């Protein structure tokens, strides 16, 4: 318990929290010590909750470690599943035409090495997202008068505002949100799409990515960093339902409730990558997409099944969703993603 060596106990407690993934550095432990000294011994729980916890997802972890150290244990969350990447052997192709072939090759037939090669090409896709006006203003050649700069310039002409300056509302690219289906039926495409998300996220820090199957996971943070392979691994460790079933409708509802209505999806460009094979209620999916299309600037649906020219969106979920989708494309290979990138700008 705390009594014998209070500081040592807190340091060990901090170390245990760090081992469970909480960002608890020495500064935080010092804060915890200060907070604990200000409170009654039985309030130690709250001393830690306010100093070493900084988001709600960390609370269960904190509770569990706290229980181990100071009180009755709390059940631990299940262990994360590990992503398996299939490595298939395929014959070599001449290097010259290789990239051209790769551009047209369906992701479903790419090896792991090819996928990583594609990741490099994906980072060159020019993602031009439509722009929106913000409240901030910037200098311009015409527009509203800019008093600040006019005043500055008037000093040059002895206080007479001869040279006038103008400003206008700044325009910023809209936010791009990627919602990736990583369920079993998307198995052949999901890794490529996560790599695409990784490349897209690197072009603007405000972009967001989510994975879904039976549950929704925000992977924006996991996809940070320059190396696509590492990013893929981090994302896989975070997504617990990889290669499982699909409940698109429910996941979209989740997304809208937890993030979308808070402002994330408002005015954004939302790209859903899914085959639309939903085991959930198709009505729910239709309703969710309708809600999404009212919030977002534009909804894009990438369905790799569309690769097959004979494909018709017969799945009931897909049918319910389509009336609310602004752009429906396949996204099954690099060439298609490039085309989507261009179409987004319009």
């Amino acid at each position, binding site marked *: 318990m705390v009594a014998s060596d209070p500081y040592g106990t807190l340091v060990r407690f901090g170390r245990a929290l760090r081992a469970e993934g909480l*960002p608890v550095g020495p*500064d*935080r432990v010092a*804060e915890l010590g*200060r*907070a604990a000294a*200000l*409170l*009654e011994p039985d*309030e130690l729980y*709250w*001393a830690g*909750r*306010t*100093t070493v*916890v*900084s*988001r*709600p997802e960390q*609370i269960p972890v904190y509770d569990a470690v706290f229980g181990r150290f100071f009180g009755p244990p709390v059940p631990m969350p299940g262990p994360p599943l590990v992503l398996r990447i299939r490595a298939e052997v395929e014959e070599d192709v001449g290097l010259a035409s290789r990239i051209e072939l790769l551009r047209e090759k369906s992701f479903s037939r790419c090896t792991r090495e090819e996928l990583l090669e594609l990741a490099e090409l994906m980072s060159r896709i020019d993602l031009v997202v439509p722009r929106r006006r*913000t*409240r*901030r203003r910037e200098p311009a050649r015409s527009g509203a008068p800019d*008093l*600040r700069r*006019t*005043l500055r310039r*008037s*000093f040059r002409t*002895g*206080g*007479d*505002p001869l040279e006038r300056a103008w400003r206008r509302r*700044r325009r910023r690219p809209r936010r791009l949100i990627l919602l990736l289906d990583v369920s079993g039926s998307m198995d052949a495409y999901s890794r490529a799409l996560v790599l695409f998300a990784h490349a897209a996220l690197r072009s603007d*820090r*405000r972009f967001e990515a989510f994975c879904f199957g039976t549950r929704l996971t925000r992977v924006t*943070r996991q996809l940070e960093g320059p190396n696509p392979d590492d990013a893929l691994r981090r994302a896989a460790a975070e997504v617990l339902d990889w290669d499982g079933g699909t409940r698109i409708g429910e996941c979209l*509802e989740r997304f*809208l*409730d937890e*993030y979308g*209505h*808070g*402002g*994330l999806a408002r005015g954004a460009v939302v790209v859903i990558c899914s085959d639309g094979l939903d085991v959930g209620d198709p009505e729910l999916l239709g*309703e969710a997409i309708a*809600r999404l299309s009212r919030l977002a600037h534009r909804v894009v649906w990438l369905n790799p099944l569309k690769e097959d020219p004979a494909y018709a969106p017969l799945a009931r979920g897909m049918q319910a969703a389509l009336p609310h989708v602004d752009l429906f494309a396949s996204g099954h290979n690099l060439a298609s993603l490039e085309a989507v990138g261009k179409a987004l700008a319009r």
Partner: protein
Amino acid sequence: MPFGSATEVEEALRRESYLPDRGLATAVYLALAMRRPLLLEGEAGVGKTEVGKTLARILGAELVRLQCYEGIDAAQALYEWDYARQLLYARALQAGEVSVDERVAELYGPDFLVERPVLHALRAGSAAVLLVDELDRADDEFEAFLLEVLSDFTVTVPELGTIAADEPPVVVITSNRTRELHDALKRRCLYHWIEFPDVEREAEIIRLRVPGVEAELARSVAETVARLRALDLVKRPGAAEAIDWAAALSLVGAPAAAGEAARETLGAAVKNREDQARVEAAWAEVVD
């Protein structure tokens, strides 16, 4: 520091009609004692902003509120020069209408400085509570700027010099968590996640906030709202909605949140068409 323990903070908040749970009272106490900004997160309507307002009343301090929005920048948070007046003054200087001892340097003197919330709070020091509301709406750059201010509570205006707070103001930051705030900022702050109140506390909140409400009605509204939150709603009703609904039911003279009266006043608690349809579908289990 006017408080000696978390319990005293809890009592003071209660006297001002804000009913905190134990965790919130402790977080507020620690923030005051350790002189740290308090970062409050939670769903809309759990009373994050109210904490700042109530705290200002308790401390007898001025409430300085900075509402964040996308595109907010330092000029709107810190200070701006009054350009139109500067321009007029410059003209007056030139026309000789201003005497020589009123020097040109005054053009960038305090007279022409328009104080915005953060600068105002710094100048007021411990006599102010700075409420930075919905920080998640602001951009990253603004968050970085705020971090700089909160690190040492000083601000440099190139033309005037450095303005430092003798005693830092109490700072309360709220976020609805539409995006994750930066870790660097979080490290500067004490953190508390505000949950929806339990039925007991919610009934008490309603009784405090709705004058003349029957205890039974307050309890019935609190229970019903708790069941509404368990439904899969787009916008779960917060304490503010519970208060509004209780007030509406009280006005029409309903004894409980049930029957026709509840249906007619539901708009006070559930403010989304899809949600209303969902509540309607589950009416028998949830309301009646």
